[in-house]
């Protein structure tokens, strides 16, 4: 009897210990990522300024993602608007399809999906590239050449992601609205006036900027996570694969979790300044 009780206590203690270790591991890892990214950004203000690098990476993250963002944006608009149309038709509120889609896209789906897609494409590439440079000793070579590797390799990538994300989100938003318009007006033959009705007076500029703000934060996070993973790669080609995988997965989870908190933050901000969220 007492034996069994002891073993239960042991098990619970074991669980607590496991939980503790996981949490300390998680916290210390997040801590070193934050130090890593802020270090890189701090160094970016020291000469030499690496603006050519920023432009190079911006081209890759931004220009390189336009096509895929257009495609996914348009199809997201098509799919989402159809479901909303079906639902609202049941309650005879099809004139609200337009504004509902517009708000959902600009505030939530636009930044989140853009974040996920760009994190997978550009973030994955960042982790893989830096990982390869690490295992081929190219980063060591930079170090011994007296080049500050965080300033040269990390900061420009973070800036590029931060700058590209809101622009890509704007493109996603526009394409998604185009998709929604096409479905509602051309396919299910809603009156264009009905579709656009209230979009103009419901959707405010600030809603667009909520989305852009979120996407900027997402850009900073996925770039920080993926560059951290790539920069700290070890163990050859296999290590590069692992670093890329972890970077992308952690970025995606982070974007979805962060989105919820950012939505709440924005809500509290509106309440504080006395506006309706």
């Amino acid at each position, binding site marked *: 009897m007492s034996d069994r009780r002891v073993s239960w206590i042991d098990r619970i203690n074991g669980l607590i210990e496991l939980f503790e270790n996981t949490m300390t591991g998680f916290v210390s890892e997040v801590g070193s990522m934050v130090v890593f990214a802020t270090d890189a950004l701090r160094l970016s203000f020291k000469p*030499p300024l690496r603006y050519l690098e920023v432009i190079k990476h911006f081209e890759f993250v931004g220009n390189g993602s336009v096509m895929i963002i257009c495609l996914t944006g348009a199809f997201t608009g098509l799919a989402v608007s159809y479901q909303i149309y079906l639902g609202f038709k049941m309650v005879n509120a099809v004139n609200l399809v337009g504004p509902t889609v517009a708000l959902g896209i600009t505030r939530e789906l636009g930044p989140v999906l853009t974040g996920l897609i760009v994190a997978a494409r550009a973030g994955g590439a960042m982790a893989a590239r830096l990982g*390869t440079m690490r295992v*081929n*000793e*190219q980063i*060591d*070579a930079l*170090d*011994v*050449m*007296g*080049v*500050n590797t965080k300033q040269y390799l990390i900061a420009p990538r973070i800036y590029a992601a931060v700058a590209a994300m809101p622009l890509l989100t704007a493109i996603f938003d526009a394409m998604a609205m185009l998709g929604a318009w096409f479905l509602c007006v051309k396919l299910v033959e809603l009156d264009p006036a009905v579709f656009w009705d209230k979009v103009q007076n419901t959707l405010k500029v600030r809603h667009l900027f909520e989305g852009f703000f979120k996407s900027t934060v997402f850009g900073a996070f996925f770039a920080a996570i993926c560059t951290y993973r790539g920069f700290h790669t070890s163990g050859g080609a296999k290590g590069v694969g692992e670093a890329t995988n972890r970077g992308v997965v952690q970025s995606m989870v982070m974007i979805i979790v962060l989105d919820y908190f950012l939505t709440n933050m924005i809500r509290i901000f509106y309440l504080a300044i006395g506006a309706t969220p």
Partner: protein
Amino acid sequence: MSEIAIHLEDVRKTFDEKEYVVNGLNLDIPKGSLTAIIGFSGTGKSVILKHILGLYRPTSGRIEVLGEDLNKMDNDQLTDFRKNFGVLFQGSALFDDMTVLENVCFPLSEHRRELSEGQMVEIASRKLQQVGLDSKHFDKLPSQISGGMQKRTGLARALALDPEILFYDEPTTGLDPILTEMVDNLIVETHHHRTGITSVMVSHDLEAAFRIADFVAMLNAGQVLLFGKPEVFFETDNELVRRFVAKGMKKT
């Protein structure tokens, strides 16, 4: 005794607070010499190299390079100090998105900003010719040239800033015998090309080390087992060294 380029005094290093990878190491590398650091795999050769380069900080002990105490420098000062070094890595470590010429120009564009682009290209071309690379390869990417040419390019890049000390980490590991001989000769030629340059070669190729080096340091268990001119290693009574030499010479 001649001037000392690198002075290591009772250097210890542990990564896990338990096991000492470097355990009370003392070593003086004379200025202008070609010195080989030898020892079997995992004896801490690369770790010591990284200490001298200031990439690792010792747990305890003193490291002086060109008369400067590395412990007294902060990271930014160390970064700056490394302009005095040139390093040829085992895998050449060329930047794979830059051409051969751009690779050699890179250290110049980082540290010699006063130079015009034309001057940088001129210096880089000269270094590439010095290591025997034909100009028809200058605009190729590292992936488009052979391993031997990659080594040459890596060496030219290491020479770009006219370093005081040249380091080679396992320059011939994994190369075929012909390429090994070529790289060994290249090291000797480069060493004699400019008087006063100090060359430090980390290797587990004992035969080559004894053949080309002025001084040899043999490492074991994080310490220097024996340091001296190559002859010393064949005359010593130290049983461990004799076994090392016999084994190492047989292997290669």
